[in-house]
């Protein structure tokens, strides 16, 4: 009889850790919940990228021969998540306030600032999470004119490769921006 009474308590204790792993990846120190920041109105979101787990391995394998740099970078990451929005017709000041609140959350959660840039209608905040001398997470919050972008990379990141990525990865969408920055040189 006493055995029967002890059983529920034992089973509850046994089940708790099982229930606790319901959201894989969210317990990683480099994870930051960009989806829950309530910065971008739902209707304004025009880009969502959620690459996690096995798909990251498949990307690394698929690019192993043709693009080893990308392959290596993706292989070291656990997830790539992006939320992009067109802020035309949206209260941009509200979005700016939301980004400020998000930076406070980042600092409170132990993230360090890499870049804080405010210039005219442009704001870029880049924060990183470090663990045992290794960058394990990167979060980018940016507002450029009518465009907003929230990015969270989870996993090992080599900071020296970040800037070179802009030129190493050939993307039509980025031509204008990279040309502009090249002119700045």
């Amino acid at each position, binding site marked *: 009889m006493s055995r029967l009474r002890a*059983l529920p308590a034992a089973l509850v204790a046994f089940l708790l850790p099982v229930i606790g792993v319901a959201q894989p990846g969210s317990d990683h120190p480099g994870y930051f919940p960009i989806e829950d920041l309530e910065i971008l109105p739902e209707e304004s979101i025009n880009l969502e990228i959620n690459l996690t787990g096995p798909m990251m391995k498949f990307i690394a394998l698929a690019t192993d021969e043709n693009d080893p740099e990308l392959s290596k970078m993706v292989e070291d990451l656990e997830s790539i998540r*992006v939320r992009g929005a067109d802020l035309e017709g949206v209260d941009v000041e509200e979005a700016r306030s939301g980004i400020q609140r998000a930076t406070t959350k980042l600092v409170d959660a132990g993230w360090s600032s*890499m870049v804080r840039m405010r210039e005219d209608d442009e704001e870029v905040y880049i924060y990183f999470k470090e663990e045992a001398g290794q960058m394990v997470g990167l979060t980018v919050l940016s507002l450029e004119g009518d465009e907003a972008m929230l990015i969270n990379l989870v996993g090992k990141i080599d900071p020296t490769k970040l*800037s070179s990525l*802009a030129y190493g990865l050939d993307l039509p969408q980025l031509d204008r921006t990279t040309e502009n920055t090249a002119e700045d040189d």
Partner: protein
Amino acid sequence: MSQWPENWSCEEVWEHLEELLEGELPETQATQIRSHLDQCAACEAQTRLAMEIRGELRALPELDAPAPLLQAVLDQTVKAQEPRLSLGELLGSWPRPIWAALAAASLILVLGLTVLSQRPTAPEQPDAAAIAQATAEARFALARVGVLTREAGLTIRDKALRDQVAVPTQKGLSQFLGQVSDAESRIPHEGVKDV
């Protein structure tokens, strides 16, 4: 059970409810409890709830867990917790049928999760188009990070140059030119010949 109460309290009824439902009580005691239930709405409701839980539990499909797995789960739960009954004792005043039902449901859940977790979980291979799409998205995201990092770096560099070099230099030059201008204005013009 060698001693039966003469006047059944609610607690005593709850204590023996499971035996009543299982048909394990002697007829005399079963009749006494039923008589109590007829007069006690709380115990009657409790009994009905216990019967419903029993019925639902019996309707659940049985899991075909391997005997070694079942033994391992029992070893890790019941046997490991046997000497430490503090929580069970603390909550022991709860009606036994509910605990029994919870225990059975939890055991089924644990067994189900354990069996499922032991299945091979090889990720399903996505098709080539999905991988290509994911690769393009990864490229875009990483390139975007690179561009933003670079742009921000350049802007900060330009701002630093402007604030720390260009502006102070301009101020210094202005001051210098201002001083020259003042000095020139103090030169007496009488002795200066126009060319």
